[in-house]
């Protein structure tokens, strides 16, 4: 048995306080390991409004959190390449989604973690105009969010 996985399972169990919550989290992980590829979130990626995209993630009621660190430029000269880095300090972070609020299709990326991956996402995205970049974190089945504004000098959607 993989010792990392073992530690992880133990950790999930403890946090879930030996309740069903822990069991659910562990089952969820096992599923991810065996059969990957949760279907591509078509409805989410094709949403034209932030609220709609949040709904497809199940994150409509996400709580603002200071334990999410978004690193992105304050001013990006080129909207075609905006580096966005998100780190979550929320325990049991399962996924991170990145939303560029004023893009024609706001939801840009989602990352799911398992088996020792750190709750960290880095990707370079296109942004059409100055807008908030919103990070949405799923941890223990609950949702948390934070925003950072990025000013765009030249849009990157052309």
């Amino acid at each position, binding site marked *: 048995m*993989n010792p990392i996985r073992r530690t992880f399972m133990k950790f999930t169990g403890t946090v879930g306080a030996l309740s069903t919550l822990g069991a659910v989290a562990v089952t969820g992980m096992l599923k991810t390991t065996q059969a990957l590829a949760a279907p*591509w979130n078509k409805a989410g990626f094709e949403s034209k409004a932030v609220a709609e995209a949040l709904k497809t993630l199940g994150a409509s009621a996400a709580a603002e959190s200071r334990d999410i660190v978004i690193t992105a430029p304050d001013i990006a000269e080129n909207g*075609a390449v905006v580096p966005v880095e998100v780190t979550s300090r929320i325990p049991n972070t399962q996924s991170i989604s990145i939303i560029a609020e004023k893009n024609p299709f706001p939801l840009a*990326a989602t990352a*799911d973690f398992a088996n020792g*991956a750190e709750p960290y*996402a880095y990707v370079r995205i296109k942004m059409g105009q100055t807008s908030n970049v919103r990070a949405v974190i799923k941890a223990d089945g609950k949702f948390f969010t934070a925003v950072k504004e990025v000013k765009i000098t030249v849009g990157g959607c052309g």
Partner: protein
Amino acid sequence: MAEAMKIRATLKGDVADIRVLVAHPMETGQRRDGAGNIVPIHFIQSMTVTHNGNVVYEGQWSQAVSRNPVFAVRVKGAKVGDKIVVNWTDNKNDKRTDEATVVAG
């Protein structure tokens, strides 16, 4: 067949810092070519990263990810010599799989 990814996996403490550069046009479906025709949408939809055979990361993207995407993943509990495999699938069902070995940072 798509071009090979560049994967760099370096160990920092017990965390493997995995950086991936993918060669892909990531067309948004909104851009026009020189003749004024819309360039069809073409983008990577999903990717998976495994560490010694265990899935550690599953990403889903929209066309808003930049051309020639760069992304990073960090995996705790890694060792030098561990095997990292990355694969992606785009909206035209093109696929690509590449692998790398974790090296000392």
